């Protein structure tokens, strides 16, 4: 396999085929880990609230 044919495993779990009402069944798994990591990144990047929410 050439390097261009290889694939990078990304940080985002593939949830497209999992119904939302089944997500909870994944429990404290890789999904919870991904969420925690994303929330951490959100804090690091300091994405601001929308102006609408910031006014509340």
């Amino acid at each position, binding site marked *: 396999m050439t390097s261009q044919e290889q*694939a990078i495993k*990304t940080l985002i779990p*593939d949830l497209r085929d999992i*119904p939302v009402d089944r997500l909870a069944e994944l429990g404290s798994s890789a999904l919870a880990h991904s969420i925690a990591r994303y929330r951490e990144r959100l804090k690091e990047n300091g994405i601001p609230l929308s102006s609408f929410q910031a006014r509340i």
Partner: protein
Amino acid sequence: MLTSHLLPEAAFSALAEGAGRPATIRLVRDAQLSKHLMLLHAIADAASTGDASAAGPAAFRAGYALLAELQATGAGGADWLLGLPHLGSWAHDCLIRLEQGSAADFAHFACLVAAAAVRGGVPFELDVPVRDGRVQLPGLGFARITDESSWVRLCCDGDRVTAGRHLDADRRDLVPDDGSGGPVPQWSGTPVIRAVAGGLAWQVLLETQDSYLDRYTLPMATSLSAEEIRRWRQCALAAWEVLVRTHRWAAEPLPDLVSVIVPLTPHCDTDLVSVTTPAAFGAIATSWPPDPVTMAETLVHESQHVKLGGLLDMVPLVTSGAEQVYAPWRPDPRPAGGLLQGVYAHLGIARFWNAQRRTETDPDDTLRAQVHFARWRSMIEPAAQTLLRTNCLTEAGVRFVDLLRAQGRRLEAEPLPGQAREIAAQVALDHRLTWQVRHLAIDQAGVASLAAAYRRGDPAGALARPGTWIEADTRKVQASVRSRLLTMRYLAPARYRELCADRTLTLSEADRLLVSGRAQAAVRAYCDEITGTGDPGPDAWIGLALALHQLPSPPLHPAFATDLALLVEVHGYLGGRTNPLDLASWFG
């Protein structure tokens, strides 16, 4: 077994090179759908832990159940919803509020899911919040509610939609407004632009009402008149033609990158501000672009940010990067890590102007395109070097920047007329020197030591340079009329010619000589200004450097290019009467 989204190396390389076919962009977009599901799951957790009877969480849970139904129908309604920037933007606000320990707006999710169900003709009944007399159906529009209710029951039987006694409409009429349909009682469709050119179609909403997309550095323009919407529509249609005709590489993936434009209210009419947030993949915001080519450039610029924002969610490219550095497109010091977004956007911009310069027929438009190209292509390599020097990149980030640099070098190899290169170099130098003088702080003991050595006649070569650090606005540099004029030379050549002939402009004699191209005389005038004034502003020093740069020979003295702030400080310490050129020669 939970798997992750995979990104083929070839797709990663294509993205790093600034391109990306639609199939590649869809990989990024698909990951955003999963990201939104991930965020929804986190919000659902929070909605289930509070007061179970509270209206907001209850509305969220009902919406969540309806989303499960939409997924089960497999008709695409769920994917439409999960791809909406409105959803991402709201979800980020929820997460931030939960992180802060403050109340999240759970209820709005019911509006989002209701919009998807109305669009897909899926029957439902949901209690939805009424805000400012409106029920928002994000991505479609809003219904007006004529009493003081804060909630209303929204029902759809698959065909008709009712909102209490306020709305009773065919669900096929509750759509965005493309300007062709008649009015629907109590309904206001979000303006939509449908552009078709050269066999490519692009549909984009002009969002002026969704509060969660009012999240940019300037406020959303919430009160556009029908005439203003018509002008936006025309400008976007013309910009799409520009992109399809000349920049197909950018046009082809655009429908998957930009589905919403948020018009912004600028501080003044001449400001062009455009911006993107990673919280709303698929949305860009911009103030009114003055012409279709500028709008096309803005779309390329911001779609680069959208693309990279999506990739950064998938693959970490930056580890830290808090060190403050020079960004050639910004007046202020920026964290090194943030430079990646800028250099990536400017790779797209340079590529845009490289193609655009070949299609312009008016000499002024051609010059503008050539100078833009010359200026932005030359920024890629130094900015990439800064990223590498500051060690703020991950291993993947280094690979990404290496590929990006290769594209920059390819653009650098393109021949360009000398006039365009000269104007671009002058404007870039003005920008860099202004930044340096404004933000580079210098250890004063070191300045004193150098001044003493100069007085003694010691050679400067053996002396250590004083310590420096970045400190925002450490020196005051006036917003220079001269800088604006130099920029106008290519942005608005006709106006530039008019202003140069206008003797009433508030320019110093030295500035006047500089802008009229009389470099040698300008050098003498700046030197006189610097030595003849007790406390000359840094502007005169920057002008002197620009005038020296204009001379055919000798080239700009190295001290002016690298140590201008130090020259200013030592000169001031010496009392301000020393000849600036002698001092620069001493620095060697």
